[in-house]
């Protein structure tokens, strides 16, 4: 059993984008703050901090989840992918190119979260309908684009995947 009293720090070891991190944090430390403040991975954005906006979405053991609705201590021993992990070897993820080409972003605040959700979505859907893409995107708020470009970008990558 893991146990920590109030204000007592616990050691959290976690693999993020293939690299091992070990940091001491209080159990109340949100995963989103852990990634940004303790690990220095500021690609994950923090918007509403109560699970509505989707900006902080990361992948924990493959599943896209809100990092503001998890404590860092709960991610101990997990494999996490953040937006930094999408372009590890210097080349952009096809979704990143497509968002750029389809005008799927303006200010870019929501983009990291959308990328993480869309990456999981495309692994599970070989030939998604527009409706399915929109349903997945319902978990993300974008105040710039009106979503049209984002839907187009995801559909574009899906089609490229299928044609390959």
């Amino acid at each position: 059993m893991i146990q920590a009293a109030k204000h007592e720090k616990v050691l959290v070891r976690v693999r993020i984008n293939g690299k091992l991190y070990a940091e001491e944090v209080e159990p109340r430390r949100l995963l989103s703050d852990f990634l940004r403040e303790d690990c220095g991975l500021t690609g994950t954005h923090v918007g509403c901090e109560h699970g509505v906006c989707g900006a902080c979405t990361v992948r924990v053991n493959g599943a896209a989840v809100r990092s503001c609705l998890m404590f860092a201590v709960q991610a101990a021993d997990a494999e996490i992918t953040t937006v930094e992990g999408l372009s590890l070897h210097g080349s952009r993820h096809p979704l990143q190119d497509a968002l750029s080409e389809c005008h799927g972003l303006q200010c870019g605040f929501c983009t990291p979260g959308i990328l993480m959700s869309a990456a999981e979505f495309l692994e599970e859907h070989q030939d998604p309908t527009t409706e399915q893409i929109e349903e997945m995107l319902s978990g993300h708020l974008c105040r710039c684009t009106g979503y049209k470009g984002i839907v187009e970008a995801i559909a574009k990558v899906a089609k490229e995947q299928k044609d390959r």
Partner: protein
Amino acid sequence: MKPASFNYYRPSTLEETLQLLLDCGDEGKLIAGGQSLIPILNMRLSSLEHVIDINGLRELDFIRLEEGILKIGGLCRQRSLEKSPTVKEVAPLLSEAVPFIGHVQTRNRGTVGGSLVHADPTAEIPLSLLALDATAIIQSAEETREVPVQDFFITYLTTDIAPTEMLTEIQIPVDTLPKGYAFVEFSRRHGDFALVAAACLLDTDEDGTITAGRLAIGGVDAVPMIAQEAMDVLLGEKLTDALLEEAGQIAAENTDPEGDLHASREYRLHLAKVFTKRAIRKAYERSLQKLGGGTQP
């Protein structure tokens, strides 16, 4: 926004968990998916003394079909329920209801048991399990109880579970479930809290006469409710537009919704009628299809 400090425990067995609950008494709180609890803590609407994290209890993360009973572990994720071919086959009402819950990103973490115990009056899981006549298995260090979901809800966010107890399993008797089913709901935007939701299960004979059924409505009272009187007018009858109108009217009259900034009382009453009718019609049509024919009303 940061939650206030708490004492944290992450037990690795059910036995440890139940003992912790006993030791912490009124001040202990379980966290499973945390998709309702963590927002409350982040916004400091509440603070906790002891947080007992049950995410290490892998033994409670299961979906099993045993002798006509669908058994869902307390820690089963909503996403697992959504993807389960077993659930789709034996309790398709659940498969239809789950996509309405929040978003895929919250369903990846949120649990079935957590939603039932949280008992939001507009939530999909409590409503579906009520319609399915499920039973909750509640355990403490001292005893194990079986509580029919029908008797589980007390009022807003309050259920028949003591601070020292936890929900470990949900059981649904699937052999006797009616073949027609429907889950419908209305919300302002996809993934928002439902204003009104309705779940219906129906069986018909070869003539299209309704022989059995259950109807449940959510969002119209402090707890999800069974609309028995509306179902009673349907039993022994074939569905006609007039009968459907009557059932919808009765269902709505028996609800007592409160108005809030999302919808007025009058609007919720209107929705209760409309969505009850939609649920009944859809379940009826599916029941006829299962029989392989029959005329549609």
